[in-house]
């Protein structure tokens, strides 16, 4: 009897969780939409854009992430070269290692690795910053001063991320190729110049632009999730930890989901 009751409750739970998930995505879309409106349309309607705050964020999100993004994407490029060489060698096609690295880094790994580093550095920081402000009533204070929190807190981050994440991605692509180049020169009879030549022959502009388009989308997702988690922080310090964790986990999940959807779309639209 009890078991039957539990089984009957399953569809209820599934439905409830689905609705919650949809509400969450809806909240993200609303927040991102509001930030996009303030950033892209607001200035033409006489609303204040806060360039110094966006600049400050851009420094934190972009410039300070360069060392770690460089290092990780260099390593990932090297790993990709090693892994693909293993298989290509058996086919006697080791000269294609440059192509393999170039395509995998520029189309997929560059944007994804960058996004994941940005989630860890900035997505979590957004949630912690806004969450702390929520707990200490600073968000309320903004509202009572007639300063809209989304315009003051989210829009500058949105703008900074929209500019900096694609920039970081370009840099990560370059560093990844450099990582592959290290293997190419050391283990596959390439010279530095011939490796770069092989890379540029392997790539078409479309590869780079789809990667950048994805990274722009990732930046929106990361900003929206980080800020949303921050705003939904309840009372108490332990809630900030919860928000930060949720921001990282949800961002990684949603970035990969968005990646899957858009990679599928690109695949379908270019098949013919």
């Amino acid at each position, binding site marked *: 009897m009890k078991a039957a009751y539990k089984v009957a409750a399953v569809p209820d739970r599934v439905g409830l969780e689905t609705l919650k998930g949809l509400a969450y995505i809806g909240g993200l879309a609303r927040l991102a939409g509001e930030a996009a409106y303030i950033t892209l349309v607001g200035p033409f309607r006489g609303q204040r854009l806060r360039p110094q705050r966006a600049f400050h964020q851009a420094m934190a999100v972009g410039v300070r992430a360069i060392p770690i993004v460089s290092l990780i994407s260099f390593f990932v490029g090297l790993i990709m070269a090693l892994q693909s060489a293993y298989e290509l060698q058996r086919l006697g096609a080791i000269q294609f290692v440059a192509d393999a690295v170039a395509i995998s880094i520029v189309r997929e790994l560059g944007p994804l690795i960058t996004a994941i580093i940005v989630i860890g550095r900035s997505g979590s920081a957004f949630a912690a910053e806004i969450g*702390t*402000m929520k707990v200490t009533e*600073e968000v*309320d204070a903004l509202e*009572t*001063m*007639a*300063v809209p929190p989304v315009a003051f807190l989210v829009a500058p981050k949105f703008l900074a991320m929209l500019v900096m994440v694609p920039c970081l991605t370009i840099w990560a692509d370059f560093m990844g190729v450099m990582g592959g180049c290290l293997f190419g020169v050391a283990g596959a009879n390439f010279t530095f110049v011939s490796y770069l030549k092989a890379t540029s022959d392997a790539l078409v502009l479309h590869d780079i632009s789809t990667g950048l388009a994805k990274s722009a989308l990732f930046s929106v997702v990361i900003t929206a999730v980080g800020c949303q988690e921050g705003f939904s922080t309840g009372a108490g310090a332990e809630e900030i930890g919860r928000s930060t964790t949720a921001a990282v986990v949800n961002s990684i999940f949603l970035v990969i989901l968005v990646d899957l959807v858009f990679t599928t779309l690109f695949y379908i639209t270019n098949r013919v």
Partner: protein
Amino acid sequence: MSESIPEAGRPVISVTDLRVNYGEREILHGISFDVERGETLVILGGSGSGKSTLLRTLVGLEKPSGGAVWIRGVNIAQASAREMDEIRKKMGVSFQGGALFGSMTVGDNVALPLREHTRLEESTIEIMVRIKLEQVGLASFEDFMPSQLSGGMKKRAAVARALALDPEILFFDEPSAGLDPIIAAGIDELILELKKAYAMSMVVVTHELASAFLIADRMLLIDRGSVIAMGAKKELADSTNPRVRQFLDRVPEPQVEDELNYLQMLTEDRKPRH
């Protein structure tokens, strides 16, 4: 109780039958009162009485589920975002913990409303910031970060920020909470000074009896979401209502609490989630 308010002049704030819900539960059960121009109204109440909810509703952070809150002739229960912003520029709020922005200096905190809402020159803003900080006794602290200030200084800085746009109404949330008696007395002194210097209306939410009797023109006692007493200090002090007497004479509740009541008290004390 509400019939006893004199209707002289147009009140700055007029609350009629205000009801506020968090979800299903009603926190404020039909509250009515006025705040006259230039007067200081102290809202007294214990933990979980709904006094913080009342303040949050007055400053527009909570939406009423019934009744009306008229501020400067606009019902904020139905005001548009733009009307609400106009009202907010005319009021200052000093939060319990100060709510200074931790990433900005004290000076930038005070300058924020000026930078956001006026087109003043940066040099003018600097002067105004210095004047406001001087008024609260924090001259030469503008380059300090909020984390470098003590609790009392944070509250003073928060008052300076609330004063930045020369508000008509100043709201205080628990001005003396978490302060030692000497610092708390200093804050009371500051409130009295501001009262003398400006013709501002003030609404102070507190549970500190001594402080309330010092600064109030009129007092309002809230218990479990309803007004149980309202009037001048003397009227309140002479009240015979048993709950009022219990609060004023600091008589503890009977030890064994009804579990449901206790849970209710706990949850009411919490800040609402969004």
